[in-house]
């Protein structure tokens, strides 16, 4: 790379080297991820092989869990379960098919909840950035909102929803679940976006004042792009919270069709004879979480120009 006139000032990062290094880093991260999963799986299987079959209890308290098949299925049993039918009768749907449909069902609820939560969270952050008074007034409520237990909100929402209809459209349980999902998602978004939108330093802000371009253009030209490194982790947190909100929401308002409902119903029917059966819907919920995180990672790749500061 050519040198600027005058010697000692040099380019601190050599651009050519960057791509190779980051490729190697990605490869390494993927490898470590796989190793982590393998480690967790073998820890499970090792305990199952060598742990006490009847567990260890001191008085009434279980100190170590039982390692028998009724409590701890083999990892592969969790997966072979996908091929089995849901009910004993002929022509029954496979567990795999049921879980797949439920996973998609929950993903749609969580996705809608995520989008609504992100919009509300971002709008709140914008408002708090715009005015100190708004920040002082709203921020405590944002924080308090998350201390209200979901179990308390869910039945309330379902109850109110009964009275809500526009024409022939009637508020239903899915809408209540979406709201619960959005309720959990908006929090990390508003906090992260607030931090990001207020991240430009005083020199950058004064420069915009000198240019005389007003609040909105300063927002678009400076605050928004500067917030990207903060928005991405906020979006990722919001996405996983939206999935958790959807799964928990389904179980607390008794909405059928999603993985939350399947987790409860499979656990009840599994009993001690078929412990592995409880796992496919749990894996379905995990897949939803991974898809949500993956979508945000993709957004992060598209916005990488705005993330230069992260590695500097």
């Amino acid at each position, binding site marked *: 790379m050519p040198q*600027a006139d005058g010697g000692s*000032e040099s*380019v*601190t990062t050599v*651009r050519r080297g960057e791509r190779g290094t980051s490729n190697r880093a990605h490869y390494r991260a993927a490898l470590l991820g796989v190793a982590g999963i393998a480690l967790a799986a073998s820890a499970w299987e090792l305990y199952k092989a060598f742990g006490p079959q009847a567990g260890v209890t001191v008085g009434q308290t279980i100190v170590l869990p039982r390692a028998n098949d009724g409590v701890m299925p083999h990892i592969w049993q969790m997966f072979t379960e996908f091929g089995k039918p849901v009910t004993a009768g002929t022509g029954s749907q496979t567990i795999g098919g049921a879980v797949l449909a439920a996973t998609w069902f929950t993903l749609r609820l969580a996705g809608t909840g995520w989008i609504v939560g992100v919009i509300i969270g971002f709008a709140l952050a914008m408002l708090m950035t715009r005015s100190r008074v708004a920040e002082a007034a709203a921020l405590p409520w944002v924080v308090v909102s998350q201390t209200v237990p979901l179990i308390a909100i869910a039945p309330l929402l379902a109850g109110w929803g009964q009275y809500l209809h526009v024409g022939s459209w009637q508020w239903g349980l899915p809408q209540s679940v979406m709201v619960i999902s959005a309720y959990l998602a908006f929090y990390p978004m508003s906090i992260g976006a607030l931090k990001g939108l207020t991240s430009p330093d005083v*020199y950058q802000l004064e420069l915009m*004042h000198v*240019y005389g371009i007003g609040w909105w253009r300063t927002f678009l030209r400076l605050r928004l792009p500067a917030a990207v490194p903060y928005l991405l982790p906020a979006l990722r947190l919001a996405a996983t919270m939206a999935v958790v909100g959807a799964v928990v929401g389904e179980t607390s308002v008794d909405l059928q069709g999603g993985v939350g409902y399947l987790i409860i119903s499979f656990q009840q029917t599994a009993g001690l004879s078929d412990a592995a059966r409880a796992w496919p819907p749990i894996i379905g919920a995990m897949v939803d979480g991974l898809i949500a995180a993956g979508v945000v990672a993709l957004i992060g790749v598209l916005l990488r120009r705005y993330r230069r500061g992260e590695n500097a």
Partner: protein
Amino acid sequence: MTAVALSGVERIFRTGKGRQVVALEAIDLTVGEGEFVSLIGPSGCGKSTLLRQIADLDSPTSGTVSVFGKTARQARLDHDYGIAFQQAGLLPWRTVAANISLPLQLHGVEKATAAARVEQLLEMVGLSDFAKSFPDQLSGGMQQRVAIARALAEQPKLLLMDEPFGALDEITRERMQSELVRICQESGAAVVFVTHSIPEAVFLSDRVVVMSPRPGRIVGIVSTTPVAGVERGEAYRDDESFFHGVQEVRHLLHSGHATDGPRGEGAR
């Protein structure tokens, strides 16, 4: 026409509990067109506050500030001055070229015109090969040059600089000073330059304004134009007139009780 005229400028900060800090008191100062004026003094003497009055980043409690015969606010809105701070304040997601063209873009200058101007500025600050680089790939000195180029983008007749070399090492700093002298001669802009380095002020300026704190005021103005036959270049640093200027500024700083004290103290 004068570039900057301040008369009877006073700035009082209220710090609550009825306490007041007099940051500036009875400031009268004019800066001619194309003139290089430095403001020097210890921390808390109000030199940055004074610059901020000219830039319309702050307003005086009393007194008048006029820039090219207009109010400071009007001059700012008319893009009559360029400004550079101690921190370069570049936008990390924009290339060097895009950072320099930022004011041109924001003020609706046509793309082709802006591109031509940016190319010219890159050459002026010696960064033509780095147009497509990003700020995090540049050293501190190079980032500061980008900031100076950005300040000059709209060909202002006035350049306001608040310790622009304050964060640089001594060697880089001296080279940047020589560059600035050349750039100012090329652009013909007047400069108001805040610093707390005596040699820097003397080397760069036509006049050095010495300030003292509590309350912030002007204790004297030293004319520091090199004697006839001496260029404002590296040789000037070893010249007798340079030493003489340094000495005079230093004496004024000391006679003005310009000792470093608690920042901005000066309650009435």
